[in-house]
Structure formats: C-alpha cells, structure tokens
C-alpha cells in the first residue's frame, strides 16, 4: 500500500472502529437502519428545504390575489386539499416538518448539554450530591412526562415569545432525567475499570480522567437514546399541539395542532385535513424509531450480531464462502 493510503488508514482508525459495526449490520437490523435513515432523511430534507419544496407558505391563504377555497377537496392546485383557514395542507405538512425537527433538535441539544455532563459529574464524584441528584431525577421520572411538559409550556409561555423555544424547553426537561440516569449508570460501572484506576494512580486529575477515558466510553450509548428520544419528543410535541399548547398556529405549522383542528372536520366527512398530518407524524416517528432501533442493534454489544465468516479450509483463499450471523 502507498504511504498516503497507510497514513489515511491510520488517521481514520478511530472513525472506522466506530462505524465498523454499522458496516457489519445484517438482516432486519440493516433493513431498519436503511429504512429509518431514509424516512428521517426525507423529513430532514423537507425541513431544510421547506421554502423551496413547499408550494405555499404555511399560513398563505391566497395567491395572485385569489383566495384559496376553504376546506377544498384534494385536487388541482392543492394536492392534499385546504384547511378551514384556507391554507394548503401540503404546505403545512412540509413546513410542519421544519417545526417538528427544529423543536426536537433544540430539545435534544439542550437535553444532552445539560443531562450528560450532570450524569458524568454525578456518577464519577458520587457522594451526597449524587444521592440528591438521583433522588431528584427519580422524582421527575414519576411524573407523567406529558403533564410536566404542559406545566412547563405554561410557565414559559408567558415570558418566552418563541413558541418553538417554549416547546423545546418543555420537552427537554422531561428527558434530562433519562440522559442523566443512563450516563450516570454507565459512568459508575466504568469508573471501577482497571484503566481508570490506573490513571488515578498515575495522578491524573478527575477532569482529565473524565475527559479522556470516561466520556468517550459513555457517549457511545447516547446516539441510540438520542434518536429514540427524538421519536418520543415528536410524539410529545404533537400531543402538546393537540391539547393546544406548544407552537401556536400563527408562529408556524404544527402537525398535532392541525389534527386537533381537523377533529371537528372529520365527523363531517372532511378527511384530508386530519389524515395527512396524522400520517406525517406516524412516518416521522417510525423513521426515527427505526433508525434508533437499527443503531441499537448494530452498536449495542449485547444485541449486536457480528457476521461470522465461515472459513473453508479446503480452498486456500481467505474469502468467505458464506456468511452467517452469530446466533
């Protein structure tokens, strides 16, 4: 191999090691990864390129001076029909993707930024503060998450003007205990490992230990949980929208709110205002869950199944004659 290739190989060792399991995924896990990434990517694209992809703005009710029909049947001009406010259903789906992913992305980011360091510190240093934090987080767990989100949406709704931010914070707070717990439990098991002990014996400062050894070890769990949480977060956000809190209709399109408005239409035979937002929710959450589950199956050492190459001793080549999955 050329020196350049060797150098590249050496530099990317960490990356390849990290992504290795994904390349080795087979079977349903692989299917899930592909399907999940595909669906999620679809919605990400919709969200990012909403201004370009969407035929109209989310609250646009007219075009060229002509008002759209109210509750118009799906057909020319409005592929998915219009709502009671004369807005285009398809546009609201596309812009809604942006709202959902915006809120969920923010919520995840906040949750990680707060929950992971808390878990790290609490797990590593232990003591009274740790006990207290665990107690607090356990108490939060006992709370039905949706209700906690509603109360916080109230609390912030008065002072924070951006509905997206309010919803994101409300969801964040319901997920911090999860990140905390997972990270902390992992830290507790890792901190007793011999290499950590060795580092301590060598006189390394706690922060260095955390940074160098513990963090990367622990952070492996996070992508899976983050993706599954993203799925749950979308459900919580749409539930908030359905009940009437969260992102207000004048600030952006939100699928849960659209379904709640469509409920009164539905019994009158108007199905397009509710069916499409509902399906959008199902698809996005399914995509995220598939992605998360797929990742879980491939990365989690308990569940992952490596490919076993059966070596045929009769033939001299090392090429695998067949592949099977370990049971």
């Amino acid at each position, binding site marked *: 191999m050329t020196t350049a290739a060797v150098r590249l190989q050496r530099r990317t060792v960490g990356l390849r090691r990290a992504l290795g399991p994904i390349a080795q995924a087979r079977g349903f896990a692989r299917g899930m990864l592909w399907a999940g990434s595909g669906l999620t990517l679809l919605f990400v694209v919709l969200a990012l390129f909403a201004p370009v992809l969407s035929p109209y703005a989310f609250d646009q009710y007219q075009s060229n001076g002509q008002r759209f029909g109210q509750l118009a049947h799906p057909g020319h001009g409005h592929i998915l029909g219009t709502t009671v*406010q004369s807005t285009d259903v398809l546009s609201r789906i596309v812009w809604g993707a942006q709202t959902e992913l915006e809120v969920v992305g923010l919520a995840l980011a906040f949750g990680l930024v707060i929950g992971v360091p808390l878990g790290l510190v609490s797990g590593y240093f232990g003591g009274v503060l740790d006990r207290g934090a665990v107690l607090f987080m356990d108490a939060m767990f006992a709370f039905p998450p949706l209700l906690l989100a509603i109360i916080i949406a109230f609390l912030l*709704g008065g002072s924070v*003007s951006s509905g997206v931010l309010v919803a994101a914070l409300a969801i964040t707070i319901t997920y911090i205990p999860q990140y905390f717990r997972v990270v902390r439990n992992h830290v507790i098991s890792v901190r007793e490992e011999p290499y950590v002990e060795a580092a301590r014996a060598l006189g390394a400062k706690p922060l260095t230990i955390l940074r160098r050894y513990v963090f990367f070890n622990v952070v492996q769990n996070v992508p899976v949980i983050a993706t599954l949480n993203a799925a749950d977060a979308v459900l919580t956000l749409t539930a908030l929208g359905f009940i*009437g809190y969260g992102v207000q209709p*004048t600030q952006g399109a939100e699928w849960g709110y659209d379904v709640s408005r469509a409920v009164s239409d539905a*019994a009158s035979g108007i199905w397009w205002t509710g069916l499409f937002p509902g399906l959008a929710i199902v698809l996005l959450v399914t995509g995220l869950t598939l992605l998360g589950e797929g990742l879980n199956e491939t990365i989690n050492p308990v569940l992952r199944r490596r490919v076993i190459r059966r070596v045929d001793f009769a033939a001299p080549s090392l090429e695998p004659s067949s592949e099977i999955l370990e049971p």
Partner: protein
Amino acid sequence: MHLRPRLRHLAVLGLAGLALAAVGATAAQSKPLASQHSLASTILDGTTDTVTNIDPAGNYDEGTSVVDLMMYQHLLGFPNGIAKTPQPELATGCKANGADTVWTCTLKQGVKFSNGDPFTSADVKWSFDRVIKIKDPSGISGLLANLASTTTNGDYSVSFHTKTPDATWPYILTTGAGLIVDSKVYPADKIVPDSDVSSLVGTGPYKLDKFSSGQQAVFSPNPNYTGAKPKNDGVIITYYSKSSTMKLALQQGSIDMAFRDFTATEYGALAKTKGISVYKGAGVSIRYLVFNVKRAPANNLAVRQAVAYLMPRQDIATRIYHGNVQPLYSMVPKGLPGHQDSFAVDYGDSPSVAKAKAVLQKAGVKTPVPLTVWWTPTHYGDSSADEYSEIQRALNSSGLFKVTLKSAEWATYVDTLGKQYTAYQLGWFPDYVDGEDYLLPFYLTGNFTGNAYSSPKMDSILKKEQGSKSTTERLGYIAQAQALAAKDVPIVPVWQGAMLAVGRSNIQGIQQTLDPTYILRFWNLSKS
C-alpha cells in the same frame, strides 16, 4: 416461595384492584333512583359547558346558570321569553320609592320549595344576605354591589335598600345573584357543595336528582312547582369536553339535543345531517377588539379609527362563522332597546381602505403601522384563531398596518392583558339583558377591560343613565353613550352571536325558547 410469573402479576393487579375497591366503597353511595326516567320521556341534552358550584351564591358562569335556572327562580325574571321589563316570577311586582333607593316587592303566596318548605320573605332576605356575606371568589356578589340591605315586611313583602339611586334594580333581580334559596337548608356563610344533592333545593320546575361533576346532571320534575308542569319527564345533561365528541354522540343518537357549543364547521355539517336540525334565535353575546388607549400605537385616535374603518365584519360572519353571527356596530347588541348602529354611522358598514388611509394621513401617521394583536385559543372558541387571522389579513392587505398576531392561554392572557397588550380580543356575556349591562362594564373609568379608558364625559352620561326617571330618558342616555363610544373608539365591536341549539327530530319546542333572554327552557320541550 417462587410464584409463577403469570400468577404473580395477576396477584399484583388483583391486589391493586381490591385495594381501590375497598377504598372506593367508603366513598359516598348514591340512593337508587326511582325508574321514572325512561328513554321515551327524558330529554338527553349535551353541552361542552362546565359547572362550578350549583349553589347560586357560588357561581358566575353560563354553564352553571343553565343548571340553576332549572332548579331556582327569581323574584322577577323572564319566564315566558323576552319582554320590555322584568316579569313576575316569585314576586307579583316591585315598586320603587321616589328616589329610586328603596324597591319593595310583593311576594307570591303558596309557593313551596321542592322539599316542601314554604317560601316566605325570610327566604328572600336570607338568599341576598348570604350572597353578600359569602363573597364567593366567583365574583357573583359584585352584582349586588349597590345593595345596602334587605328588609322584610311581613311574610310576603320585602324591601331592597340601594346605596345609590338605581332605576334598573329590577334587572339585577333577574340575574343569578337574585335566585332564591331555602333559608332552612342553605348555610348563611358557606356554599352548599355539589356533592350534597339533597340540600340543593329550589322552587323551580325541576329538582336535581343526581350530579356527577363533569359527567352528568339528572333532573326530574319538581312535584311542588307552582307553575305549569314541564312537558317532559326529566332532563339528563351530559357534559363533554370536546364538541367533536358531542357531535358524534348526537349523530349516533346517544343524546337528543345539544346546547353550547359547537364549532362553526360542526354547525354547518349538522345542519346538513338528516334527522338533525340547527335552531337559531337572536343572541346577546358579543365579541370585540379592545385597545389600550395609553399604549402606542393605539394611543393615537387615528390608528383606532383606521382599524374601525377596516374591520372585516362581514367576512368574519360568513367565512368563519357561516352566518351564525352577525356584524356588530355597537357594543349594545341588536335586539335590545336603545341599540344604535353607531359604528356603521361613523365608519360605514363595510371596510373602506380609502377612508382609513385618509384618517391616518390627516393625523400624519406613518404607514404601515406596526401593531401586535393578541387573542386566546380556547376560551372564546377554536374559531378565534381563524377570526383573528382574518382580521390580520384585512389590516395587512390594506397596506396601512403590519399586524403581528400573538396568543396566550386563558389564565395567562387575562393576567397579562392590562399590563402588556396593546390590542386584544375579548367577549362579553350579559348579566342582565339591558343596554346598561353593555355600557357600564366597558366605558366607566376603571372598567374590567383594563384598557385605561377614562372619559369624564362618558362617566357623567352613564351616571345620569343609572339615575334616570323614565325609560325614554334612559334610552336617550344609552344612545348618547353609544355615539361617544364610536367617536372615542377605545373598543371596536366585531360580532354578535346568535343563540344556537341543535336537536334531533324527536325534540319539539326548541325554536320557541331561543330568544335574547338566552335561557333554554327545558320545561317547554317535549320528546316524541
């Protein structure tokens, strides 16, 4: 001890169930209802209202007043529909002294409460005294703010002494604060809780048999009622949290009728459904846009007038509410004596961009004017979102305004509106059906809208109105107040709602009970 898993989890669930059953068994047990209720003759009504405290001294909301009006009576009221003045119910008549400070009422004789107790003046004094004494947080005692004391003259005469001359005191008697309760049963200083159904006695056409808060209220005819017997054998009101669920129930026939409240789309769909009719009568609820006259840009009269010129009332009435509301051109609604279309006179009955532009130019206001308009998502109905979108569209498309819409849920909204909002949505439901109740609450200094409007001229007109000696004089002041309100335009009236009820074809009598008194007279409904 290693229980099998299946048995174990069954045991856990079973234990939980038994535990709750044991605890629940100690809860109040209801007496068996006589099976006089049968599907054939009991009216099944649905509503999305909520009931707070049935005791008249403890509630000040529409949902509870529907229940109260079935069980209690006033001294004066509107038992047979809208009338020019309050009509006798438990009193045969009320007269004022010369100064309008003492109103004396003669009471009907031979009336009994549903538990057999006789009705006398002691009950009247007791009822009014306790409303004031209890001073319930619902605010009902505010209606009796002008009552200094109540005195009895024998068993069948009672006098009300007011603090200031009050020409419209009889109208106060027709409000929820004037409902009469049994002095032998109701405590003087406490509300009777809703769980104590047997104590909630009144003189009205029905008595309350069973009440499950938030679920249903069951009524059967009051055997001691002195008026005409109800045309049915009872009423069961089922409470729904969402109108869509109520609509499905109505379509399926689980309920026979519904009063308050469906969305505009739902009314439209119900009107087209076979076997179901939507009945419409004159209504008295109103919606309006309030300006805080001290906050920019609403502190500029020209800005407020421009909005009045641009208000798209017709569009809102047809597009959003499908004709179930009508454009409103004065805070005193149409159908009430003294109503004037003052806003139509001053600003035209349809939007005019040219006139709005002219008034802004004349005042030297730079356009487009940035304005934040607030609304609330559920308290005034789900269509509020659509209504205010429509207002925003109208104002923005004129090129003269740049409106940003914001919303807050009810409790936050109410707490903040006086402190921060410049332009905001409000609605009103009258305490009593008279023009006065549509002027005093909005235009007096210190009014509840929190818009800091204070005009000495308006205050004096309204004071004179309250002290008027004759109806003509009073109506004159009411007209003056409306004219001034249109000139100062601290509030822009938007629409007036109709009184709507929906019934299946087996219920008769609904249309006749829909009138500006806004009382659904269940006792006049019959089921075939």
